[in-house]
């Protein structure tokens, strides 16, 4: 047994907490930046629209970061990266929740009738709302308790919903753009790579069997 080497490889508790703090702050930073801009009048002439748009874009970005963690962990052989999926995923959910709340509460000013009409008539809102509703069970079952209660296999199956949710988010973005579709296409391309890697990884795992 080579105890000393092994012990050196395991990161210290302090370092672990530091890394965790950095990830947490990185996820929190866009919100602080947005709030700072909002209070300083730096969101432009139409701050409500800018706020809603930015919250949505950051939610989508964090969803993509969340989807990138598993491939990164495997490719760079850093299995401990996996523990950040929950942090990033819950932050993504928080941004999207704020995105929705600012649309319903600030833009529509709780006009439930108009909200219902939007959901029925506007495909981009229908899809966005569907994506949000599908995200709720994932956020709720993100705790260790729920993983135990559901069992690993069932939990994993449920959380595969993310492969539907993120494409819905990209389409939601694409449909609301007036003319310049480059940004949503870039997000779509990143998503395609991340999902493509999973298909490739699953296939090669099967071939090895």
């Amino acid at each position, binding site marked *: 047994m080579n105890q000393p080497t092994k012990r050196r490889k395991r990161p210290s508790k302090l370092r672990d907490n530091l890394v965790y703090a950095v990830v947490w702050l990185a996820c929190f930073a866009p919100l602080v930046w947005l709030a700072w801009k909002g209070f300083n009048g730096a969101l432009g002439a139409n701050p409500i629209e800018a*706020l809603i748009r930015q919250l949505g874009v950051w939610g989508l970005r964090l969803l993509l970061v969340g989807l990138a963690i598993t491939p990164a962990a495997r490719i760079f052989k850093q299995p401990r990266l996996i523990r950040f999926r929950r942090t990033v995923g819950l932050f993504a959910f928080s941004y999207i929740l704020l995105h929705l709340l600012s649309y319903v509460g600030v*833009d529509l000013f709780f006009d439930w009738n108009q909200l219902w009409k939007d959901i029925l008539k506007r495909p981009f809102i229908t899809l966005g709302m569907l994506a949000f509703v599908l995200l709720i069970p994932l956020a709720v079952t993100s705790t260790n308790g729920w993983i135990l209660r559901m069992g690993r296999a069932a939990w994993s199956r449920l959380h595969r919903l993310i492969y539907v949710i993120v494409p819905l988010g990209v389409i939601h973005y694409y449909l609301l753009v*007036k003319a310049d579709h480059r940004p949503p296409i870039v997000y779509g391309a990143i998503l395609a790579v991340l999902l493509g890697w999973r298909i490739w990884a699953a296939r090669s795992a099967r071939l090895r069997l």
Partner: protein
Amino acid sequence: MLIRHAPDLTDNDVTDHGLYLKRRTLMAGLAGLGLAGAASEARAGLAYTKGFSTTEKPTSKDDITTYNNFYEFGVDKSDPSQKSGRFKPRPWTVRIDGACEAPRTVAIEDLIGKNRLEERIYRMRCVEGWSMVIPWIGFPLKDLLATVKPTSKAKFVAFETVMRPSEMPGQSWNTLEWPYREGLRIDEAMHPLTLMAVGLYGDVLPNQNGAPLRLVVPWKYGFKGAKSIVRISLVEKMPATSWNKLAAREYGFYSNVNPAVDHPRWSQATERRIGEFRRRETLPFNGYGEWVADLYKGMDLRANF
């Protein structure tokens, strides 16, 4: 048609003013307070008289000059103010031709010098669901068209705008087909409310607002107001327009402001006036129906959106 009195159409102030200010402060910090000072900021750039105007409070100059859709400079609202520094609005000439007896090319100095300039404070409703109140300086398009003596074949007016990819970074990407084109029916173009604007807030037009010469048609969605115009042609057939070519289902030739006809992807029933917190009702023809509804008598405005 003489329009003497100022209309007072849309004071849809549902929100208590103090409450609105508080919310605005919450959202935009102290920027909202800038609204108060900007209205009196007229500089002595142009000589003009007061013309047909709304009595509504103009949007701040800061908002009017930093929140723009002018895709020639980029698709973000801040692109036109940030990326139009290289654009040269002088020297400038406009060609007026087509179905007329006296086609001509006229320099911008002559347009400004030989027309009686008026300030017209108009509402501007963007197709995206926001609006402003803008103090334009300009002259009626009909005065300009009269100088070339349109013939009976002039059924429409086509506007062609400038093509300068070296000065307009947005033109290096085909978000729209460049140069940007717009059009009006001849009676719309001859309507006394239809304005050729050369100034804003008492001064010459800033680059981001369509310098040196742009169209303003207050009862239509904002994109109908072609900016940086180089050619005005009197034509017999309905001309092609840029947004219509991109998405005919979403942007019709007429594009009159109409709360009853939604954009396929969003509602047009309400709008957010820039600087206000709550949305307000959108008015048919942007509140100018009293003067323009007759132009469309007997037309199905759902089909001719």
